[in-house]
């Protein structure tokens, strides 16, 4: 489980960074999206990995990290997802506007002669 999750986070972050470094705005937006997925999974796993446990205090059970899942990272992830979603939408809007105005989706707004 731990290995699988680490591999997922690593692969997503790696792909995200690679796409982010490309010169097209579309690739950059995709890269940022993948990077934020990686970060969200990372935050989630920072509350310790726990399968089939509720993040709720139950009657008669001493609530420690051994018996319950940590609810705080779940709340943090929710906030982070909303924020990164909204910000990606903003970036897409700006990229689209830039494409319409310059006729190119190069991040510098350059013409098509640059790779």
């Amino acid at each position, binding site marked *: 489980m731990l290995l699988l999750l680490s591999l997922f986070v690593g692969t997503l972050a790696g792909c995200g960074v690679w796409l982010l470094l490309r010169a097209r705005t579309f690739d950059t937006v995709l890269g940022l999206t993948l990077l934020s997925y990686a970060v969200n999974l990372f935050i989630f796993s*920072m509350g310790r990995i726990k399968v089939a446990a509720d993040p709720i205090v139950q009657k008669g059970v001493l609530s420690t990290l051994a018996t319950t899942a940590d609810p705080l990272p779940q709340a943090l992830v929710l906030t982070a997802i909303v*924020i990164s979603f909204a*910000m990606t939408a903003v970036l897409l809007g700006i*990229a689209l506007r830039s494409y319409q105005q310059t006729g190119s989706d190069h*991040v510098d707004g350059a013409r098509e002669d640059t790779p």
Partner: protein
Amino acid sequence: MNHWLIAPVVLPLFAGALLVLLEKARSRATAGVSLGSTLALLWVAAQLLLQAQTGDVQVYLVGNWQAPWGVALALDRLAALMVLLTALVGLAALVYALGGDDRKGMHFHALLQFQLMGLNGAFLTADLFNLFVFFEVLLAASYGLLLHGASAERLKASVHYVAFNLTGSALFLVAVSLLYALTGTLNMADLAVKLPQLGAENSRLGHAAILLLVVVFAVKAALLPLYFWLPATYAAASAPVAALFAIMTKVGIYAIARVNTLFVTGSGASVAGLLPTALPWLALATLVLAAIGALAAHRLRVLVAYLVVASAGTLLLAIGLGTPATLAAGLFYLVNSTLVACLWFLLADRIAWSRGGDDHLVARRLQHGWGLFGALFMFASVAMAGVPPLAGFIGKALLLQAAGSSAKAAWIVALLLASSLITMVALARAGSVLFWKPAPPAVIHMASPRPAHYAALAGLSVLVLATTVFAGQIQGYVQATAQQMTARQPYIRAVLGAHPVAPAYDVRLEMRERGDLKP
């Protein structure tokens, strides 16, 4: 519990929400509401400064939960000073924008209020994740403001700025969640207690988390490898927005100062690692490169943007050295440099306007206000370069005096003075080209000047003069601030010791008595 602490966040929030509607309806009250809200914010900030001056750290528990569990706001001397500076810069930018810039696009006033809300929240919060949220609020507003009255150059700068800051936010989340995994808390006071208690097996992770945090803040503060976005962005933004952004780099500097004093220096923690040695050197390198950038600039606004980077370098040097004396000198310089940078961006816009909208450093005749703008240029140059008699000089002198006893004293004195000299040369060269070089007359059609423009310039000039005249009082305040920061304990004790208010009306008890709630 003192409810005034939440006012700097709530007031711009409601004003901004109202302004969205008013601007949509093209109401005439828009400017009045915006100005009224910002003036009220200035009054609140002044009251908070008076309260913080007593030396008590005041804490506001949002949602009435005890400190490490709920989000807390904390008002110490540093936070109060930053909130007051934000209000002053916001007011100056707003007054200038009322001269016509606010009508070049939609929702300028609402975005400005949301920006002020994010800034105030970031300065007041004592919770690391809440700091992230307020960073996002102020960044989201800044994206909108940067695009205000969009031109092609502005769009290009915006794509870079947004992508860069989104990557920064991702790193911020990684750092915050690492710290949470290590200590189980996000409260800054609680972190300051728990980080030094980390076991040896976790100290490297803690070290990495702190460095990641500093990298994220350095993106905002414009430290050496991460400042390349700043000149392009600040030069592309419209004048009042660039003036408002003068406080944006200070958010990063504030956050580095907070993290450095709470988590790294005074704590004797094993997580300190690389930071205390690396930060002063990077700051010095930033300072030198920014001075060279200012010398190489072809446009006045790019030159001013490099001066902002140079002042950030000076401030980070003061923070990186980390003694109470250098911190006090840095904070003194921060007050002055923020106001001067704000004045500079507005003045550069007026000079460009007088030349027909062009601020390239080539000979061109000024159509309007040669004497006035020339005198202001001289005044602002003296204030920025740190030459006597204005307060910029006092700030640099205090820093040199405080750094004189540190191990790197020779390098610091030499590079700080050399960068001041280069800055002065750059400004003198720009001034002589702009005002003295003869140019053929040209007929330019330009918008008529507005009283709002001159009001903003005059107000900021008076403020810069005031920081010089009242330098003694300000120095007393920043010295007390530096002592409060390095002592750490007042902040930690106040935040962790704050008690929730006992509920006047217990809903659960009521329900139990009525039998709605099973015991």
